[in-house]
């Protein structure tokens, strides 16, 4: 694998989307804003091409040489070589796989957005801004993935956060969108604060920030200057980094921003808040395996957070009526699966689930967008139904995505989710049970959504001219559904993905002391040990789909009755466990109240203080101004006196 080629491809992957963003904005200056999707499609598509190229090169290299760290240039060097900050990339199987996923899904979403952001072939207001932000996001995400040190990782991390903020608040005139953007930004701030501290602690401990040196030093068990690593330092770093991951990947307790983020345009939800950005936390934990696996307690924390989030979000998704909200909670739940996978040392399975999830969740979101587009912006499933005749193609694609998400046998989600549950069972029975129960719920709510939207008698909101979407929308759906159906096959037979990822995540494997991704196989052989769980979870998924069918197509009166029988449960679930309200009461309101007190203090005390503090410079400024009165004599006097004072000072000193 030639380092030069890797280097060039990496640069192109970054620069092409950036160039696309710039051109999209510049086009507007020439009143060509209508066409601003073209530079972005080419930029992001070009990035996808080179990402595939990188994957190809990594695959073609020998296993021992699949990891290439290339320094583009030194950003700052302060003396000793160890304290150089380089602009450097790390290309290895993990980043190659992430790159392909990110750029590929991005390309399709950008193509999709071309029609989605138009109404009757008139571009929406801010059309070019939208595409420029999308391209900027791809640039940021690729920076995050390609980063070869923590500094660059942090830069990408913050940049994607910024893009997310800008895109959630794309309709900034809408108060709810502006509020959601603010919420996302602030909640992420909490996580990023920990993340930043973690990186500082890494620098403090090891005196450098690039992956290779840090991980090497951890392996050797030394800190900066050859000293021994302080007790518990790695666990502390891991927990701080985990803070960032929990915020970015919407895990308990910081998941609250993600459902609200659906206020952004649907392509944004599909790309940033389902397929790519929110998986950054998973990527980061997988990348920092050396840090996380050093402490089994931290791994347990990761697993428990993941399992709890998966279950918690799935229960909420059971009763939501907004199609995008169902998908949002489902995303939170699936991210929980990935964390569960990481926590039980199955990083390969977690990344594999990330990979398949990107396809089917993007597909589902984009289908929901297609429905929304057809329904004139209405997304409440109670207001429409039986759309399978009106939107035949959307229905088919959406169904494929739903089957994948539900874990229907031999669809992509089936393989990846099953692996995680399998590993969870090997680690701890209860973790496995949570995974299985969540899987059943997933199948149920997914098909509840499908049946409510597409089956039953046809109902279309009044005044809406329902129509199937155009080819710009259907083409990405088609491509993604191919991925949703077949992406799982890259893993079977033989767990190829896990073996491929091995060089990047071997610490998980080493720490677990078992062969990666095949824990079960190493423990027990035989048909049932290997396929039993698979058959059971496949069967359960089908069963849950059947129940959903009965409840929402056959006995439509039953859900209502169930809600009446257990009104409290329903209300609690419908209101998302009142977490937002609880946060509101426990955090936001007190903060506001203290904010008001602070505001009072600020206005009367701090402002007074600031006034006093600035009064000093202002007074001095005024005094100096009076010196600058314009009279020559005083100028000359000050000058000569000043000189005399300095002479005296120097002589006396």
């Amino acid at each position, binding site marked *: 694998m030639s380092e030069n080629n890797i280097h060039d491809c990496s640069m192109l992957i970054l620069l092409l989307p950036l160039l696309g963003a710039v051109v999209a904005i510049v086009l507007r200056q020439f009143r060509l804003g209508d066409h601003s999707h073209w530079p972005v499609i080419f930029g992001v598509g070009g990035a996808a091409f080179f990402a595939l190229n990188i994957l190809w090169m990594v695959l073609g290299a020998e296993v021992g040489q699949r990891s290439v760290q290339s320094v583009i240039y*030194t950003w700052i*060097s302060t003396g000793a070589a160890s304290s150089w900050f380089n602009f450097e990339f790390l290309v290895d199987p993990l980043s190659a796989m992430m790159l392909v996923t990110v750029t590929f899904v991005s390309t399709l979403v950008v193509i999709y957005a071309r029609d989605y952001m138009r109404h009757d072939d008139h571009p929406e207001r801010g059309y070019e801004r939208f595409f420029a932000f999308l391209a900027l996001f791809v640039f940021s995400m690729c920076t995050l993935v390609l980063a070869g040190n923590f500094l660059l990782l942090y830069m990408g991390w913050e940049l994607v956060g910024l893009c997310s903020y800008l895109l959630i608040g794309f309709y900034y005139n809408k108060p709810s969108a502006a509020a959601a953007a603010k919420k996302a930004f602030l909640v992420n701030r909490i996580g990023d604060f920990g993340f930043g501290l973690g990186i500082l602690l890494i620098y403090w401990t090891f005196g450098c920030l690039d992956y290779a040196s840090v991980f090497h030093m951890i392996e050797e068990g030394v800190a900066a200057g050859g000293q021994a690593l302080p007790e518990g330092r790695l666990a502390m770093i891991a927990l701080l980094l985990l803070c960032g991951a929990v915020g970015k990947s919407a895990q308990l307790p910081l998941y609250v921003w993600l459902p609200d983020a659906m206020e952004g345009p649907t392509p944004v939800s599909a790309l940033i808040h389902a397929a790519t950005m929110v998986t950054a936390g998973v990527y980061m934990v997988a990348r920092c395996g050396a840090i996380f696996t050093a402490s089994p307690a931290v791994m347990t924390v990761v697993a428990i957070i993941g399992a709890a989030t998966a279950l918690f979000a799935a229960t909420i998704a059971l009763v939501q009526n907004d199609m995008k909200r169902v998908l949002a909670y489902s995303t939170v739940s699936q991210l929980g699966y990935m964390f569960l996978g990481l926590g039980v040392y199955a990083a390969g399975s977690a990344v594999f689930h990330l990979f398949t999830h990107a396809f089917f969740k993007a597909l589902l979101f984009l289908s929901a967008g297609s429905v929304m587009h057809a329904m004139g912006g209405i997304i409440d499933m109670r207001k429409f139904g039986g759309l399978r005749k009106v939107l035949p193609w959307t229905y088919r694609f959406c169904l494929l995505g739903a089957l994948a998400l539900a874990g229907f046998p031999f669809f992509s989600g089936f393989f990846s989710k099953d692996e995680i549950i399998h590993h969870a069972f090997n680690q701890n029975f209860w973790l496995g049970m949570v995974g299985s129960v969540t899987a059943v719920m997933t199948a149920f709510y997914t098909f509840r959504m499908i049946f409510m939207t597409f089956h039953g008698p046809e109902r279309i909101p009044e005044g809406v001219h329902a129509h199937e979407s155009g080819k710009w929308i259907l083409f990405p759906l088609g491509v993604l559904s191919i991925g949703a159906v077949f992406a799982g096959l890259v893993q079977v037979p033989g767990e190829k993905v896990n073996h491929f990822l091995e060089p990047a995540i071997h610490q998980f494997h080493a720490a677990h002391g078992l062969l990666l991704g095949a824990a079960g196989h190493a423990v027990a052989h035989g048909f049932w040990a290997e396929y039993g769980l698979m058959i059971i979870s496949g069967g359960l998924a089908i069963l849950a789909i059947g129940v959903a069918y009965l409840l929402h197509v056959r006995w439509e009166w039953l859900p209502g009755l169930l809600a009446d029988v257990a009104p409290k449960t329903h209300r609690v679930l419908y209101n998302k466990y009142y977490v937002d309200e609880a946060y509101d009461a426990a955090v936001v309101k007190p903060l506001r109240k203290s904010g008001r007190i602070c505001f009072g203090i600020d206005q009367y005390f701090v402002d007074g203080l600031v006034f006093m503090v600035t009064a000093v410079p202002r007074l001095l400024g005024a005094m100096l101004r009076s010196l600058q009165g314009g009279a020559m004599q005083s100028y*000359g006097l000050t*000058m000569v006196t000043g000189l005399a004072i*300095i002479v005296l000072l120097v002589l006396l000193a």
Partner: protein
Amino acid sequence: MNQLLGQAWIPEGVDLFRFSPELTLVATIVLVLAVPMIMGRSARLVGGIVMLGIAAAGWLTWRVAAEVSGQGVAGMSPDPASAMLLVDNLSCFFKLILFFFAACVTGMWWMGSSASERNAPEFFVLLLGTALGMALMVGTLNMLLIVIAIELASLPSYAIVAFEKRDRAAAEVSLKYAIFGAISAAIMLYGISLLYGLYQSLSFVEVADGIATDLATGRNGVIIAVALLCFFCGIGFKISAVPFHFWCPDAFQGARIEVTTWLSVVSKAAGLILLMRLVHALAAAAGAEMISALAPLAWGIGILAMLTCTVGNLSAYMQTSVKRMLAYSSIAHAGYMLMVVAILAVPGSVGAASAVSALLVYISIYLFMNLGAFGVVALVYWHTGSDSINAFSGLIRRAPWLAIPMLCCLMSLVGLPPFAGFMGKFWILYALAEQGDAASWLYWTLFVVAVLNTLISLYYYMRVVVKMMLADDGQESVRAPAAGTIMVNLCGLLLIAMLIWAQPIKHFADRFSTNLYSAPVLTVDVGTIDQTTAHP
């Protein structure tokens, strides 16, 4: 001088080549005066000649830089031991900056003033005259030539500040500027004459040797201190160090904006580099055993730097004219740069290399920040006729392509990332911290003062940003010439690019700051003096 006249010395070809950028400037001045007599006083024609002349001078400097890069200093003098003119990496670096900046300022003039300009030849004679003076300032250690160079840089600037003859305010500030210049020149000449009286030499290298001997034996302490301070006071006037700064805000506000831009960067940079050379020569002559003897010098420059920085920033607080605010800001920035010079006052200092290179980086970055900021002020001024802060209200709507580069430049002037000003401050603070660890707590004091000043400066720069971005009183949009818009946007982009490529810029500066140390003129006889003085 007698010797020079008596032998009718004729410089060699290679000396002439090394001196060719300055000679090109002289030729351009002659052409600017002569050609309009034949071909008519067209402003554009004059501008074209000037551009060509500057380009030629810049190209020659580049050639000279390549030639001298290995061997350090070359002298232009019949007596090799006492060079009149020095050509080394440092002077080449500054001249490159100078000519580049001259081209930019000429470009500004072309956009804003050339249409109504009736005295183009005179304008450029004055402008190029100051440029010639500055080019000489950075290329000499001969005290006579230092005086001539400073006066050559100053006299035309008095006149060019008052170039709008009918403008009473301009005439007034010009007069003040001239009187100040006269006072400080007098003080400086007093100091120089004291030095000449003490050591009977005009070469500062020899003077520095004499000072080192005297300090080692404890003779003439008071008179040396007074003489040096008076000498440096003249340079302090050029870089508008407090308390010699009074001319600066008035002159900058009264002058045409392209003149202000010009003076705000290069005139200070030239003074700083000259001061750096002098201080370095002193430190080199003194040698590492005499750190304490030179401590008053370090403290003197350090205190001046702190004062300059703080007074500049504080005075900028209440300004309502953006142009005047930027004038005060330029005083403050001279203060930051002066802090670095204090590092050089420590003989054998470990931090000298990073100090010189930090200063060069800072000057290169400062050039673009100021060019961009003054450029936007100019474009707004040409349209609205006002440089008050209110003219910037709602600029993001009225002229987004002016507001954005202005934002970049102002943030960069504060020293915030992701703009290059951050790197400039970073290297200065780094050099100070390095020196603070190695030498004296003076440098940690300077460090703290620099950081506090950055905080203070945030306020007044952001005042403009807030006005541009958040306030809007519905003024009409600003129409700016395309070339000007492109120029200021390039400055903004460059400021980001110079942060992204921070290390290459630093390497570039490192390369140009090295041979200051291997200069044969500077190291002459240092060893023998040390031996004779340390063990008499």
